[in-house]
């Protein structure tokens, strides 16, 4: 699949970060990026569109990124979606919690071009791209 056809959902309650991540992903050739500010908005987006990848912050309210990850992993329709936590949270306990909840990868902010190979790796493992 062409990166331009991969649907990515970015969830972060900070608009600045949504804008930066959107720019970064587009600069790397990902053409379909939807950014929302909360898990409830993300759930609405998931009902409207099929996504291949979710990039999600941890610290959000009313629903944290971890709670949203738990939700996504319980949805039969979302099992194939790659989920990467992108967060300033870097304690071992949080990373382990996310892994146990089914995260595909975990990136500590800032997300940079250097992380794009991780994103490609996850998408390859999920058979979204070859």
């Amino acid at each position: 699949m062409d990166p331009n056809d991969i649907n990515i959902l970015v969830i972060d309650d900070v608009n600045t970060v949504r804008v930066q991540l959107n720019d970064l992903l587009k600069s790397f050739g990902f053409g379909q990026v939807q950014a929302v500010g909360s898990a409830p908005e993300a759930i609405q987006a998931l009902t409207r569109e099929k996504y291949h990848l979710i990039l999600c912050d941890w610290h959000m309210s009313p629903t944290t990124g971890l709670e949203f990850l738990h939700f996504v992993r319980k949805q039969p329709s979302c099992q194939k979606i790659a989920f990467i936590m992108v967060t300033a949270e870097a304690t071992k306990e949080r990373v382990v919690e996310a892994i146990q909840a089914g995260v595909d990868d975990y990136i500590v902010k800032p997300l940079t071009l250097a992380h794009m190979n991780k994103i490609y790796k996850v998408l390859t493992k999920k058979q979204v791209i070859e």
Partner: protein
Amino acid sequence: MTAGGTADPQRLKGFIQELTGFAEKAERNLNEISENDGLSESRLGEFSEQMIAIRGTADQLGFPRISRIAGLGEEIAVKAATITKRSQMRRYLTSLWDALTTVKFMLEHLSQETSEEQDILSHRLQTVLTQLGGPRSTVDQGEIERLLGQRPE
């Protein structure tokens, strides 16, 4: 991609406004904490959340100095939440105010070089954090890879 050196000025202004908004929320929290002599675990938790939002966003934008001070404020707030004596709490509240006012100053004066006062403050906050037991341990990307590799397929 960072905003520090190359972002469109109007866009950068919007980014800074958002960060300042977090700092103002943190200030309201700190005012409430101060009125209760700090013994409010939930308010300290909210303050550390605002500091993590500033830290993460500053990191993404390429403002390491702001990230560092916000990070120290965050860690002190997390550790201070376990303190039960008002007399001890007052001291840590001062540190939280120092961290917050410095972050606000830095946001207003982005183009200025680090001042000696900021370096001294950073060192002082680090000392306070050490007295509280030091920051929570964090993992680097290498350790994260290792943890990911350990999970059952």
